[in-house]
C-alpha cells in the first residue's frame, strides 16, 4: 500500500514483529446485556480481544454474535455491562464514537448506500477534502483523489469490478461484500470487526478476504471475525470465542481442539466441564 503524505485520515499500518510474551488486551467487555422486547439477545456476555490476534466468534443462528459486535462498535447501546478499550472504560453512544477510536466494522447487512458509487461508499462519512482553508470550510470533496484511493484499496480483492464510479447497486452480492471489507481494512487504526465477511463470496474471493485479514493482523491490528464457515475459522483464527444463548460459552484454541468438539460446545451437546482444559485459550 502506498501512503500519500497529504492524506492524514489513514495512517499507514506499521509493519513490526509481535514478540510480546504476555498478550495485552485491546478490547474487553463484561456482562453485556441487550434485550429486544421479550428476546434477550445478550444475556451477560463477556468478551476479550488481545493484541495482534485474529479472534473468531462463532455460534448458532441467533446466539447473539451480531448483537455483541454491534455493542462493541457503538451501533447499539447495551442495556447493561461495561466495555474497555486498552483498559479504559468507554461508552460508545454511536458508531461515530467507535470509529473515532479506530474501530472499523463490516456489518452483516453490509451498510452500503446502493445508489452511490463504490468510491463514495468507501469514503462515506470521511470524505477526502480538497486542500486549502476554503475547501475545508465548505467541506469540498476531492472526487479525483477518492477515486484513485478507491482503486488502490480494492486492488487486493480481485472481484472484477469495472469502475469505481459505478453504483453499488449494480454489483453482485459478493462484490458488495468486497466493498464493505475493503472499506474496513483501509480505515482501521485499532480494531477490525467483520461480521460474516465471506458468507457471500466464492472460493477464490473468500480466500482473498482471508488473506486480507491475515495481512491486517500482520500489520498489527487485531481482527474479530464472525463466521459459520468452520474450515475458514480453523484456518485463520488464533482463538475462538464460542457464543451460546447470549453468553460466552468458552474461548478455545483452534490448534488444540477438534472441529467436532467445538461444534459440540456451540450447540450445547458438550459442556465446558467435559472438555480437556488444555483446549481452552
Amino acid at each position: 500500500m502506498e501512503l500519500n503524505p497529504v492524506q492524514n485520515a489513514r495512517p499507514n499500518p506499521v509493519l513490526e514483529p509481535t514478540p510480546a510474551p504476555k498478550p495485552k488486551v485491546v478490547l474487553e467487555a463484561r456482562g453485556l446485556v441487550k434485550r429486544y422486547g421479550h428476546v434477550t439477545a445478550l444475556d451477560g456476555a463477556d468478551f476479550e480481544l488481545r493484541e495482534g490476534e485474529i479472534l473468531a466468534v462463532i455460534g448458532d443462528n441467533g446466539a447473539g454474535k451480531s448483537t455483541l459486535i454491534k455493542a462493541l462498535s457503538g451501533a447499539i447501546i447495551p442495556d447493561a455491562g461495561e466495555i474497555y478499550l486498552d483498559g479504559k472504560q468507554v461508552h460508545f453512544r454511536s458508531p461515530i464514537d467507535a470509529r473515532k477510536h479506530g474501530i472499523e466494522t463490516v456489518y452483516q447487512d453490509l451498510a452500503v448506500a446502493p445508489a452511490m458509487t463504490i468510491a463514495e461508499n468507501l469514503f462515506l462519512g470521511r470524505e477526502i477534502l480538497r486542500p486549502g482553508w476554503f475547501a475545508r470550510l465548505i467541506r469540498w470533496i476531492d472526487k479525483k483523489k477518492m477515486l484513485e484511493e478507491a482503486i488502490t484499496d480494492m486492488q487486493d480483492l480481485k472481484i472484477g469490478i469495472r469502475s469505481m464510479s459505478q453504483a453499488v447497486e449494480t454489483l453482485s452480492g459478493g462484490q458488495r461484500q468486497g466493498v464493505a471489507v475493503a472499506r474496513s481494512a483501509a480505515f482501521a487504526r485499532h480494531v477490525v470487526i467483520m461480521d460474516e465477511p465471506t458468507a457471500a463470496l466464492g472460493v477464490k474471493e473468500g480466500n482473498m478476504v482471508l488473506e486480507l485479514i491475515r495481512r491486517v493482523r500482520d500489520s498489527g491490528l487485531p481482527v474479530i471475525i464472525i463466521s459459520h464457515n468452520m474450515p475458514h475459522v480453523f484456518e485463520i483464527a488464533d482463538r475462538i470465542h464460542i457464543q451460546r444463548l447470549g453468553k460466552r460459552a468458552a474461548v478455545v484454541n483452534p490448534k488444540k481442539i477438534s472441529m467436532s468438539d467445538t461444534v459440540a460446545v456451540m450447540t450445547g451437546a458438550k459442556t465446558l466441564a467435559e472438555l480437556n482444559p488444555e483446549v481452552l485459550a
Partner: protein
Amino acid sequence: MAEQPSGVTQSPRSLLERLPSLTILGPLVALLLAVIFFSLQSERFLTGQNFSLILQQVSVVAVLAIGQTLIILTAGIDLSVGFVMALGTMVMAKFAVELGMPPLLAILCGMAVTTAFGFLNGFLITRFKLPPFIVTLGTMNIAFALTQIYSRAQTVSNLPDAHLLWGNTFRIGETVFTYGVVLVIVLYLLVWFFLSETAPGRHLYAVGNNPEAARLMGIPTQRVLLLTYTIAGFFYGIAGWLLISRTSVADPNAGQTENLETITAVVLGGTSLFGGRGMVLGTLLGAIIVGVFRNGLTLMGVSSVYQVLITGILVILAVVADQISKRRG
C-alpha cells in the same frame, strides 16, 4: 475479449460516465420537445421576452422546490411549503409596514419565521421519529391558520423598496430580465455545488438512500435531517421575498397549491420520491416545464380545465418515459 479485466482498473467508459446522467437528460428532452411544439403553434412563443416571462412566473415555485428537493432526497416530503412561505411574507410585510421596522430587518424576521417552521418540521420528524407527510400536514394547517389570524385575511400593500428588490429589471439586448430570475439561477448553482461537491451534500444523499448504513458509517443522520428541513425553511423565506417582489404585496392566500406544484417540479426533474436519487438542476427544469406548458397553452387559447388535463397526462408521461429510458440505459 470475453474475459472481464481482473482487479480494478480505470474504465475506458469514464468519459461516457461523465456525461450528465439520464435523470437530467430526461427532463431536458421533455423541455425541448415542449418548446418545439409550442413554437410551431404560436409565433409569439419563441421570443426572449416570453422566455424571460416564463422564468419570472416559475421563480417562486422554483425556489420553494429547492427546499422540497433537499427534503425529498432524504426520502421525506413537505406539504407545508407554500403555507410557511405565506406566513413569512406576512411577517416581512407587517413588521415593516405596521411595526415600522427597518425593511431589511423585517425581511430577516420573515425568513427567521420560515426557517423556524422548517426547524419545527425537522425537530418533530427526528425527535419523535414521525413520518414527514403527517408532520407537514399538521404544520401546513398551523401555518395557514396563523397566517389568516395574523393578517385577518387582509392583503398588505405599500411595501418599502427593499421588499421589492428582486422585481427590479435589467436588459440584455431587447429582453428584460428581473434580478429575481438571476437569484434563482444563482441559488440553483449553489445548491447543485453543495449537493455534488461537498461532504454534507453527499451525506444528504446517503441518508436518503440508506439511513441505517449512513448511521453505521458515522454520519449523524438525525442532524442531517434536522438541518435539511431547517435549510428548506430558509429557502421558503427567500421564496417569500421573491413573491413579494413579484406581486408587490403580501397576500394571505398565497402558496396554497405550491406543495403539489413543487413536488411535480421535483418529480418531473427526475428525483425519486424514495430518496437518495436525483439532481437539483432537474427540479429547475421541471419547474420550467410546467411554466412552459401553462404559458404555451394560454397562448394557444386552451382553457384552464384542459390545461389541468394536459398537466395530468404530462406528469404521468414524464415518469413513464423516465422509467423506460432507465431500463434501456
